[in-house]
């Protein structure tokens, strides 16, 4: 018999008293499939799938649903879920001395064999440590004893494994679908005593996609530069070569409380063929792989019938680039018995949104329309390789608003390399042009309902993009640029919001950080950092204090142009894109910027 400790139901009831949204912690959704811990065999492995944000944010994540499905389908493995408890629940847990427990069987974190964190972005690092601490698990991997659970992480924020290396026994880089089962098989051999922990880690480190921090040494010079990483071998990212090999999760867990995206999600394509130079996902998810439309139609219908959702979203980095999109939408709308099916298409390209798509989508309940011109001026769009013209943008807007849309959301970024005040003014101008064009072609009775949301993000030079050597613009000058946009757009039907540049600065530091950042993250968490991605909870001061304490300057990671020959913390990973080719693009861009100046 395995010794699995869990929280009694009565104690859960007590914890939930006075909690704002108890529905986050009660499990009991349709679609859960964890195994009964009392019936686990000695060689079974139980895995905690931990999402370091709240339930409503984590549940729509398809990666979580895919891994949960794969693990629980296996006869001897079981997966349960953990989410970050909201601050009121954390207080309850700490005050009552209750350790963090899983949703399904309320098993304490310490009783799991493996805890896998999903790191969707860098601002979840502090929450990750907070969850480990709430679970009663030592943060630093080398301080953990051999019988504590192994801790790993995967997701977009692990492409540079260095910052979180301090805490992780291993990291999964790339697609996790085909990696997870072999890892668990090896883990079972370790847990039953067939092999020791080191042999386990050695064994899995030979697989594509597995990075074991303990086997890599970052060496810094006295001046504080990263001098060498030993040994020099690179971890190749794991690539799922054929998406059709992995069935869509057609019986996902259906949340009982409303998640941020309340719909059936279908990944139609992975990777993006566009090559926008700021977009990390575009480079790290290569090559582009599509699912076949026929199978998508079949599995989408199956999923809608199994779940009862009345909305479906077709996910990818650039959904309108999926070659059979019209056939897919038509196929799903025709075959479903749900007459009110609404179709949501995030990530539409302004130059591949067609009349056909517009017509098909508008038959159901119209979801919002979202486009990302990213930059205002043609010069800037050329620099970032967003290959669309102003005419593309305006024609597309016209098409959509003629078809009956009433609202639109636009995404822009400021702070790109070489961006001037003029370029920023052109963002303001484009916003107004879009609004004017939309209002001119809308049916007259609808004009008063027109509204437009504009979201201005801060450019983050990220690893594995041609801009990975670029500096990030300072907070002060970003604020001026944002104000410039605000000062030039006054229409009451246009709402403009932007991301906190302090937060972007932190994100940039954490994404380009080296192994010394681990201690900074730990100390920032000790100072109270958590929920850094939540606008009303984000506080830069614990981070600033932590950088001071560790005698590390944030500016080292954000403010400077990197030397093109310096060793980068993420050089330990082979992401599938040649560094030389990134460099040649970077050089070309720099030349364009210099020629203008």
């Amino acid at each position, binding site marked *: 018999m395995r010794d699995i400790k869990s929280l009694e139901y009565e104690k859960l009831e007590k914890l939930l008293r006075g909690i704002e949204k108890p*529905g986050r912690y*009660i*499990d009991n959704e349709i679609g859960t499939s964890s195994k009964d811990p009392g019936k686990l065999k000695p060689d079974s492995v139980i895995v905690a799938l931990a999402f370091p944000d709240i339930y409503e944010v984590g549940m729509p994540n398809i990666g979580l649903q895919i891994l949960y499905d794969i693990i629980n389908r296996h006869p001897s493995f079981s997966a349960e879920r953990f989410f970050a408890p909201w601050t009121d629940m954390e207080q309850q847990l700490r005050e009552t001395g209750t350790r963090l427990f899983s949703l399904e069987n309320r098993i304490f974190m310490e009783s799991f064999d493996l805890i896998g964190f999903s790191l969707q972005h860098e601002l979840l690092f502090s929450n990750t440590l907070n969850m480990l601490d709430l679970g009663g698990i030592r943060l630093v991997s080398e301080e953990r004893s051999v019988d504590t659970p192994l801790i790993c992480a995967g997701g977009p924020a692990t492409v540079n494994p260095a910052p979180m290396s301090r805490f992780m026994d291993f990291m999964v880089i790339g697609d996790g679908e085909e990696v997870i089962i072999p890892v668990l098989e090896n883990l079972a051999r370790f847990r039953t005593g067939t092999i020791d922990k080191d042999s386990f880690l050695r064994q899995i480190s030979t697989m594509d996609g597995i990075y074991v921090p303990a086997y890599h040494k970052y060496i810094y010079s006295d001046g504080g530069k990263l001098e060498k990483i030993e040994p020099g071998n690179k971890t190749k990212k794991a690539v799922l070569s054929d998406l059709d090999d992995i069935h869509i999760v057609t019986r996902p867990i259906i949340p009982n409380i409303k998640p941020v995206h309340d719909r059936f999600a279908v990944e139609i394509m992975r990777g993006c063929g566009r090559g926008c130079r700021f977009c990390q996902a575009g480079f790290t998810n290569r090559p582009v792989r599509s699912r076949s439309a026929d199978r998508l139609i079949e599995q989408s219908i199956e999923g809608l*019938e199994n779940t009862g959702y009345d909305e479906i979203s077709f996910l990818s980095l650039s959904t309108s680039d999926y070659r059979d999109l019209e056939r897919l939408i038509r196929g799903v709308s025709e075959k479903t018995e749900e007459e009110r099916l609404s179709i949501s298409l995030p990530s539409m390209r302004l130059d591949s949104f067609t009349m056909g798509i517009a017509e098909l989508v508008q038959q159901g309940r119209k979801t919002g329309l979202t486009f990302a011109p990213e930059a205002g001026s043609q010069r800037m769009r050329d620099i970032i390789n967003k290959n669309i013209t102003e005419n593309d943008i305006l024609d597309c807007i016209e098409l959509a608003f003629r078809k009956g849309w009433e609202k639109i959301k636009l995404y822009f970024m400021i702070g790109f390399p070489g961006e001037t005040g003029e370029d920023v003014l052109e963002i303001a101008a484009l916003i107004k042009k879009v609004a004017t064009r939309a209002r001119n072609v809308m049916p007259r009775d609808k004009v008063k309902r027109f509204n437009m949301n504009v979201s201005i993000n801060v450019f983050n030079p990220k690893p594995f993009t041609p801009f990975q050597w670029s500096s990030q613009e300072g907070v002060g000058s970003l604020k001026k640029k944002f104000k410039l946009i605000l000062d030039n757009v006054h229409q009451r039907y246009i709402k403009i919001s932007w991301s906190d540049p302090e937060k972007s600065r932190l994100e940039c530091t954490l994404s380009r950080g080296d192994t010394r950042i681990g201690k900074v993250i730990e100390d920032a968490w000790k100072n109270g950092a958590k929920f850094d991605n939540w606008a009303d909870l984000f506080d830069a001061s614990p981070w600033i204090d932590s950088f001071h304490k560790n005698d590390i300057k944030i500016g080292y990671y954000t403010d400077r142009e990197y030397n093109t020959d310096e060793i980068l913390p993420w050089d330990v990973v082979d992401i599938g894109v040649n560094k030389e080719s990134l460099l040649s693009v970077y050089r070309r861009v720099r030349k364009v910027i210099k020629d203008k100046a």
Partner: protein
Amino acid sequence: MVGKRIRFKFSKIGVFRYLSHLDIINIIARAIRRAKIKLEYSKGFNPKPKIIFGPPIPLGINSFAEYADVNVSDDIDTKKFQFWLNNQLEGRITISNAIEIPDGMKNLMSQVDIVEYLIEIEGYTCREDSIKELIQQAVKGIDTEKSIYDIKLLKRECEYSNILLLKVYGYTKTLRGRANRVFKLKDFLESLKNILTTKNMVIKSVLKNELYILKEGKKLTPFEVLQSFV
């Protein structure tokens, strides 16, 4: 149009009492769709399924008396409706009964006048008349007299029990000619708790037990009112 209106009753107990009114609506709407029962939708820009639920209760309170009226566009037998829906809810929420609503009858929300709560009080040692006084104080303490249709104190049948059972009938809306107020459970419980604490008594449990419609001076449940409709 072959559609019909169906009134059904379900319980919201255990962990499901932690789900909000809106959450339950979504859970049931999805289950209806999974059961392939065709729903009628409202008209307009953002069509919503036509499901009307009874008055909501605060999060965390057990209920044996949740009701909903749904418009379906199929001519489906109510027993089948109940069976199919329960199948899809997989025991999480259980529909205990479903009855067709006759044409011309008002919907649930506009019908219901009174909600009945059962409140268990533990630690009772004093004589019964003094506890009555305490409860009167609790009612007066928050000026809720006008929101209560009736209140009854029952001693549990078990001789040695120190548990009292309180039945509170609160108004769910203001009624013509009564000058009443809407009963607020949270306020009432707060006031009751404060007074009981002084006598070392506690509220052990609260249960929403039934809904009533006042008709010619009689209290009828949402199902009884269907049968009384001529």
